[in-house]
């Protein structure tokens, strides 16, 4: 089984996770830029973070046979901090980098005027650089927030198929489906969605334009939720092809609109077996060797 996790914050995870993900079938991920738990206080902090998403994190993922891509944005929460907002001027230069597959996560946290400004201006950047957008829906006021999000997206003029609206659930799936955008679901241990509810939604709404992610970060989350959802789908009678569509072809189709996906196997990882860890791979903070 091949799995593409379209939303996972690997900078917060350990190499054990990478190893377990590879073993579960994860071969490619997208890491959206977001906040760090601890608020940032300057633009410089952002730049180091973006550089790390496109540099060290991509290298680290490749050491474990996983293709790593990123989305770049000022996130909605920090759009409210004037010390961070000037990062908007730096974002365009990141949007042309290899492996930047979308503008994101953008959207609303508390629906303030500052968030309006950051959201609208980054939607325009996505149009200018012909990139898809990953839109975060608020954790509080989700229904009203999603409605307003879709209005702003529509007003921006960006094509609906260039938009992935994430963290959906039973209450707001239909409005996103009707808008013609892609529907993202984050499967969490106790919040957001779980596997069984996800399978129920897939039964009701079909597999088209639906993406499943683990959204794993430094909080209570599980980077193997993509695989667990796939297993639940199979147990519920979905076919291998259905699973492949939701866990691979749909996220690939969405992010491929950026022309920036690289999905060839990483040399040394062509087979399903993890390379022999004793062959020049031990003794460093991450796996070593010429395999990257």
């Amino acid at each position, binding site marked *: 089984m091949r799995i593409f996790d379209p939303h996972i914050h690997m900078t917060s995870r350990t190499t054990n996770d990478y190893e377990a993900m590879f073993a579960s079938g994860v071969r490619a991920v997208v890491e959206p830029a977001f906040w760090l738990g601890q608020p940032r206080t300057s633009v410089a902090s952002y730049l180091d973070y973006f*550089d790390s998403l*496109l*540099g*060290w994190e*991509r*290298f680290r993922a490749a050491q474990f046979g996983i293709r790593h891509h990123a989305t770049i944005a000022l996130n909605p929460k920090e759009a409210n901090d004037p010390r961070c907002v000037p990062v908007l001027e730096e974002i365009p*230069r990141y949007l*042309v*980098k*290899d*492996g930047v597959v979308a503008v994101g996560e953008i959207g609303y946290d508390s629906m303030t005027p500052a968030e309006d400004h950051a959201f609208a201006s980054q939607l325009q950047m996505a149009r200018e650089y012909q990139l898809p957008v990953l839109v975060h829906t608020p954790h509080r006021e989700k229904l009203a927030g999603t409605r307003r999000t879709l209005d702003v997206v529509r007003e921006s003029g960006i094509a609906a198929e260039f938009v992935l609206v994430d963290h959906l659930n039973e209450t707001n799936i239909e409005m996103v489906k009707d808008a013609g955008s892609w529907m993202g679901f984050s499967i969490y241990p106790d919040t957001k969605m779980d596997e069984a509810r996800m399978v129920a939604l897939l039964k009701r709404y079909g597999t088209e334009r639906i993406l499943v992610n683990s959204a794993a970060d430094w909080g209570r989350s599980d980077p193997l939720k993509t695989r667990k959802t796939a297993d639940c789908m199979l147990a519920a009678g979905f076919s291998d092809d259905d699973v492949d569509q939701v866990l691979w072809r749909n996220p690939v189709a969405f992010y491929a609109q950026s*022309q920036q996906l*690289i999905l060839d196997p990483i*040399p*040394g990882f062509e087979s399903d077996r993890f390379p022999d860890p*004793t062959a*020049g*791979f*031990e*003794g*460093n*903070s*991450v796996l*070593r*060797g*010429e*395999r*990257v």
Partner: protein
Amino acid sequence: MSVQKIETYQDMPFAVGYGTNGWADHPLPVAIPLLAEQGYTAIALTLGHPHIDPFAQDLTSQLAEIRTLLERYQMRVVVETGTRFLLDPKRKHRPTLVDQEAEARMNFLRRAIDIARALDAECVSFFSGVIPEGTKSSEGWDLLVKRLADLVIYAAEREVRLSLEPEPGMLVETVADALRLRSELGDPDALGITVDIGHCVVVEPGGVQGALQQAGALLANVQLDDMLAHAHEHLPFGQGIVDLPQALSTLAEMNYQGVAAVELPRHSWDAPALAESSLRAISQAWSEAKTQSAHGRWLSDALAAIANDPRCLPQIFALAGRTVARTPINAQADPTGVIFGMRVDHARADLIAELFTVQDPEALAQHLRDLYYRGDSAERRGVLRGLNKLVDSGRQLEDRMINTGLEITGDALRTNETSLVAAAVGAFGAAHLDQHAWRHAVLKLVFMGVSLRAVQDLHVRADEELARMAKDFAAERRAANRSIPEDVALLTELPIYSERSDEG
């Protein structure tokens, strides 16, 4: 395993074929479907034993059968006339167009023209001949001109194109010879030129590329094979010195739309396997050709755009991977590209080397700094390899440039990204890093498990202190019951210190 013909060939302007003289152990109704299945879209049909007797009583029905086969499998066809003992069972290829008596050859070639018309073939390819003993070259030349004049008229009347193939050792040996002959004939439209790319490495002064370009619009037929420079022997790809990617990219640049067929007449015993491996080699060479030309195109476009507006440099530098392949420059020796870099790294490096010749050194040093610090890992490799290229090509660097280079190199050496560290120990590092920093860089590579082939001038700069560091590193590994990287021996066994220190 059949080869994916669509993906491989849809962007080739020419058709890839295989010569039937390399399928002498298969009847045509067996060979043609096999070739089609493998992904070939043409055949080069050699007349004579064993496939088709041009003087057979039932020739017409034989040709009808072949034409049906070709149509069914959508194969294009060229007619080849290089059969060995058709006209004289004792003397190979004789008589030829430069022999005193050549009526048999003339009859055969006229028949070949008829056959080409019946099959709707794209040309009849033929050679001149080896001057027989006792005949002067000038005599042979006159005979050739006279006979060709007749044949050209015969062919033109039947709307068939002739294509003269220069052959090593024959009177018409090079494309230049063929052009001279053609001009003596008044440059008739019905006479084109065949180029065998293997022959080019034996006799053509301009090599494969030069010969193809010289033939230019007159190129009517191409034969593909490998060859060594000293022997006219058709070899499977990879066994000679022919630059296949260059040959294919030259054909593409010329927009050659005819047939290019594999010519391995002495390998019938292994035809199916060779047809498959040849096609794989062609397909690989074709993707290589495309990336090579993408590199050249990107570089000239980039230089033109920067000359027009220098402010676009950062974006052009960042976007290089959209045009130039992000694949290893030497995939065989370095499948991950860590040691020798990616194609796109070298394209970026070439851009830096070119900018050096047009930009003020102060400005360029500042640009390099910005490109590096504002770049992702790939862009940073490009800058590091650009510095290497400047040193490699013997450029005189000013202090400002050296200091910037050292600052960038120092940053790269602090990272744990193998490809950055490897790029930082190239020619620039070898020339400018102080000994302490250089030793630590080398040891870091060993520690990271990266091959020391990445290090420029290892033997020049290695010293006793580095040997000591490597020995200590090995001892630490032994103490932990860990394997010792093979490359440690390169540092501890260099004659410069092991012998000197033992003797001293």
